[in-house]
């Protein structure tokens, strides 16, 4: 055999064996992902995409996860509630998760803390951790394709690629990251602002542009929820300190325009009087602590009621 053909044959053999191993690894990880504790980040994503069935959902990033006392909201509204927010995962992730939920069932109320600044193109907006569910849901798949390009359809054929970056969490069953104090997805934070932390260090997004892809994903998700009769309410929860004077309003305006178009109320709670100059309610400038949630959740409940009673 010619040396070149011999080499190509060896590489082909390696590729075939790799596909076999990939199939087995994929199966094992699929099974293990089902056993992840819900209190871990990866487990929470798995639950959000595959299992959650509550009529009231709270979604967003860390500010949603730590600010809304789910049980209090559940008791007050008389409907089962669950927080499916994940730290550092923003509009596109949240939209993809909501779409996967809508593929399975129609929740009654969605409280969405999407972050009014999060449409800026320089803000983080990863959907990487949703790769394992690429083939589970068409709408989730289309969001990943929109965000990461058409080549994803080829890459995702490899199970190991689908689980890239998530596999180590699954293999450890995410135990080290599991937070047992999580209650129905809500995780209160303990601690107060200290020293330098009292200075607001929000990223100053100046003269940045609104990400068209992100805006499109957000708009389609809002539209779909409204078409299916979901009551959607947008929130932005308190921040410590005054408004960032350099803030560009484009993202905020784009979100508010979409909401106005589809009749979605927006409660901009960032500068509530109850929280202004009250460092005891904050863990850091952008996150309220456990004490803060006891003040904030009743305000949210009141706002939700006002919408539901209309």
């Amino acid at each position, binding site marked *: 055999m010619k040396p070149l053909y011999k080499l190509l044959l060896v590489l082909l053999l390696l590729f075939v064996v790799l596909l076999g191993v990939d199939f087995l*690894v994929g199966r094992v990880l699929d099974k293990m992902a089902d056993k992840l504790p819900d209190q871990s980040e990866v487990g929470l994503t798995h639950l959000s995409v595959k299992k959650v069935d509550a009529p009231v959902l709270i979604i967003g990033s860390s500010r949603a996860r730590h600010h809304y006392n789910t049980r209090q909201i559940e008791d007050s509204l008389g409907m089962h509630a669950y927080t499916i927010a994940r730290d550092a995962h923003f509009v596109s992730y949240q939209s993809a998760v909501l779409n996967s939920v809508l593929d399975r069932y129609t929740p009654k109320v969605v409280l969405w803390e999407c972050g009014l600044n999060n449409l800026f193109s320089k803000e983080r907006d990863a959907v990487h951790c949703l790769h394992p569910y690429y083939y589970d849901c068409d709408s989730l798949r289309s969001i990943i394709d929109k965000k990461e390009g058409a080549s994803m359809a080829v890459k995702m054929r490899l199970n190991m690629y689908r689980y890239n970056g998530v596999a*180590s969490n699954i293999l450890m069953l*995410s135990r080290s990251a599991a937070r047992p104090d999580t209650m129905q997805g809500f995780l209160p934070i303990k601690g107060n602002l200290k020293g330098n932390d009292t200075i607001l260090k929000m990223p100053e997004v100046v003269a940045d542009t609104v990400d068209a892809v992100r805006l499109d994903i957000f708009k389609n998700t809002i539209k779909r929820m409204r078409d299916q009769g979901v009551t959607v309410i947008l929130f932005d929860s308190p921040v410590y300190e005054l408004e960032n004077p350099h803030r560009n309003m484009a993202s905020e305006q784009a979100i508010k325009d979409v909401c106005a178009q589809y009749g979605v109320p927006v409660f901009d709670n960032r500068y509530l009087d109850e929280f202004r100059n009250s460092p005891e309610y904050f863990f850091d400038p952008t996150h309220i602590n456990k004490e803060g949630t006891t003040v904030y959740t009743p305000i949210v409940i009141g706002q939700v009621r006002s919408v539901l009673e209309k």
Partner: protein
Amino acid sequence: MTLTSFAYLFFLPVVFVLYWLLFKRDKNWQNAFLLLSSLVFYAWWDWRFMALLLFTAGTSFFFGKLIAESDNEKRRKGLLVTVLLLNLGILVYYKYLGFFIQSFVDMFSLAGIELSVSTLNIVLPVGISFYTFAALSYDIDIYQRKVEPTKDWLAYFAFVTFFPSLLSGPISRATKQLPQYFQKREFSYDISIAACRMILWGAFIKLCVADTLGVYIDTIYANMNKHNGTTLFLAQLLYTVQIYADFAGYSFMAIGSGKLLGINLLDNFNRPYFAKTVTEFWRRWHISLTTWFRDYIYFPMGGNRVSKLRWMFNTVVVFVISGLWHGAAYTFLIWGALHGIVMVIERQLYGDKIKNLTSKFTLPNLVRMFITFNLVSIAWIFFRQNSVADAVHVIKSMFTDFGKPYINLQMFAPAFIALAIMWLKDLADEYGWRLKLLNNDRMVVRFVTALLLICYILLCGELDGNLFIYFQF
């Protein structure tokens, strides 16, 4: 397209198969196809700068011919200076003009005069520092009569634009690489297998060590003021590892890609963190750049055949230039100067013994390695930070603000396993220990090792992540 991109995963095999199946007729066909592939590769990145690449290759080829044809020393020198000015001028415009103007404005500002200069947003053409140096080496070598000029423009253009080394080296040298393009390359199974192993190993250390550590390091440095000195110290140590894994990984992939196409590129790394002195470190780190500076700047300045004081000056100047080659910023300048100064001090401490330190695994050598690693690591602080003030802040915090380091086990575990594998392999290679996996005598072991590395890359590598650190240079 980068060497770890999804596109390259298809590009290289297609080029490889076409090259050996359809274009194997003679060297002209091979060179033409290499040139075409390289241009496609470069245009994939940014087609607008292709003209610049071809201009550099064209002028160096043309002037090389003129220099060789002339017997008049003055004219030869004039021609060399012209081509140097032309190509270095382009480099200076794209890379340094903004820096010089800003320094100028700052200087006036210190004197209380505020100048209003609009900011220059010049986009740096990728790979410009690398291909300019490759092209210039040809003209300088012709001037120094080390190499004969070629009439084969196709071979020359294929040499300057050769895609595996185009973006981040190893910096090609006319004396060593160009003759390979004058003859037809023959396929070799053994060399190709070795090349595949190099590419795989390079991808492993880049994606599983450098990029996964990079996620942690970038997180820390993005919020530097929020972290204590211990965390900054840890981040800095890891950056020392990251930059090695990043650049060595790239170099292995480039050299492996070159071998697959029958072209040998220069070695670029030889386990630099096993160096016992900073002087030795530079014989092991970015070898193609170090030897370029040695041959074209250090030796013409007199090298070490000058007075001690002049030698000290030469050494520091060469390293300052090397620092500035990396980027137009004071941080790079300080980084280069620090290396030069430490080398001068080492020479005073060790004398001529510095050339003859044994490479045995002994306690004194371990201590020397430890000291060298830490000196290099401290210098990297200036290399990594955006400003001198940031670098000083990191150093100050490291020695004053102690506390519990921020560690994310989920993030760390895969990176540390990969790091341990890389370190073990380097250790075994350094001391000749028998730990053969990818090049084991038994095929099954080789096969399984390759398979495991691929699986590890797919599962734990940072696949959609960072560019190579050296791309910015």
